């Protein structure tokens, strides 16, 4: 069984008690909490560990919380995954994302679970969303393990100051949390982004990956090339196209979206690093609610999905809010779902303007 709960109680202790009441009755092996940065992360971590002492507890701060039926701000959501669904859970922490070998050490701490059968083991990864280390973490995880690690970058309600990840009673900054679940009945991965191809290609020819900057596309200043691609005459007009016209590294027809953040002089800063020489296709936005609904229907065509963890990009949330569609989006989920609005999504790599989900089957 998978249960989810939402609490809007402003007092942290009251919110955790509220969640505990709603989640009572099961024997969860894992409780995952996503909380607004209005709550103190250390208090959430300590209270969660004390409230569910028989369970592993992990989570992170958000840029908005999501539960089936509602998208919120300033709240806490939780998912309790029962032992019948995940009969074994391993948790490890990367305390300092800047430390060399940190991913290797954390993965070793997960033990044999990190190299379990990829059909029945799935990973969760929650990373400090202000660290800028997501690409390195995901690449190294992929080097060392064949498991899918799905997750997101913690948020802080759009303050862009400090985000928090929690595990086993501890709250941490500049850190990441890894969990591996053994789910005998299996799982499905949903990766959905709402864009179509335009046929226009931009190839980064000069980049600064540490700062997620593209200095040149096709040997032209990045700003000039992007403006030409989106058909605008000024930088201001082009900046207005960022959300509807990101670029994608195409894996067949499946884009790994890289979203522009801002012009930095003649360069273009992205929300994730891009690789020089790899063609990026200009994308055009489509309908998030329709596309997500189709992805969910495909994932649950046999009706076996019993719960979903959802890592939804903050840029998608902002678009849904601007179009007054948050309710429509949240109501697409007909099984227990908990998630949050992220500062970046994880599935094989670090991506933007995407929702990555783990759909547990029963």
């Amino acid at each position, binding site marked *: 069984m998978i249960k989810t709960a939402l609490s809007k109680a402003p007092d942290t202790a009251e919110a955790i008690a509220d969640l505990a009441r709603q989640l009572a009755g099961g024997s969860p092996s894992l409780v995952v909490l996503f909380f607004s940065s209005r709550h103190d992360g250390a208090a959430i971590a300590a209270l969660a560990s004390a409230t569910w002492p028989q369970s592993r507890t992990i989570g992170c701060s958000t840029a908005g919380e999501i539960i089936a039926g509602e998208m919120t701000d300033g709240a806490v959501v939780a998912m309790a995954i029962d032992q019948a669904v995940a009969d074994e859970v391993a948790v490890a922490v990367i305390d300092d994302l800047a430390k060399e070998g940190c991913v290797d050490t954390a993965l070793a701490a997960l033990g044999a679970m990190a190299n379990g059968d990829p*059909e029945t083991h799935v990973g969760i990864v929650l990373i400090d969303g202000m660290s800028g280390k997501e690409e390195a973490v995901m690449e190294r995880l*992929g*080097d060392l393990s*064949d498991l899918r690690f799905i997750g997101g970058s913690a948020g802080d309600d759009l303050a862009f100051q400090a985000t928090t990840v929690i595990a086993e009673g501890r709250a941490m900054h500049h850190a990441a949390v890894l969990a591996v679940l053994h789910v005998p009945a299996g799982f499905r991965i949903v990766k959905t982004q709402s864009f179509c191809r335009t046929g226009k290609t931009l190839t980064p020819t000069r980049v600064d990956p540490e700062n997620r900057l593209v200095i040149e596309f096709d040997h032209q200043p990045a700003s000039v090339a992007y403006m030409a691609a989106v058909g605008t005459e000024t930088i201001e007009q082009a900046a207005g196209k960022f959300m509807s016209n990101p670029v994608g590294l195409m*894996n067949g027809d499946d884009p*790994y979206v890289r979203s522009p953040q801002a012009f930095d002089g003649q360069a273009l800063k992205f929300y994730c690093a891009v690789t020089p*020489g*790899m063609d990026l296709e200009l994308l055009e936005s489509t309908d998030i609610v329709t596309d997500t609904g189709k992805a969910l229907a495909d994932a649950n065509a046999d009706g076996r999905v019993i719960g979903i963890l959802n890592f939804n990009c903050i840029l998608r949330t902002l678009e849904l809010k601007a179009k007054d569609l948050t309710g429509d989006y949240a109501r697409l989920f007909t099984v227990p779902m908990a998630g949050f609005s992220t500062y970046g999504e994880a599935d*094989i*790599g670090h991506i933007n303007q995407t929702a990555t989900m783990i759909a547990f089957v029963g």
Partner: protein
Amino acid sequence: MAGQVLRMIDKLVEARAKGNATVASTTRTKLLLKGIKVTNWTATSPDDPEMIAKIREVAKEMGVAI
């Protein structure tokens, strides 16, 4: 000589996937994200020393002997 890049990619993917089609697919995606577009290389592609070196480096990172 031609086709060495494709042979190295195939060997890397096979070594990692051990017959698991899902792992083979995700390994190819990992290569794409590392800057190796698998579909660009065929049995007749010229041997590109730069790409060959890159694949050797990636294989080492992934713990695969090719």
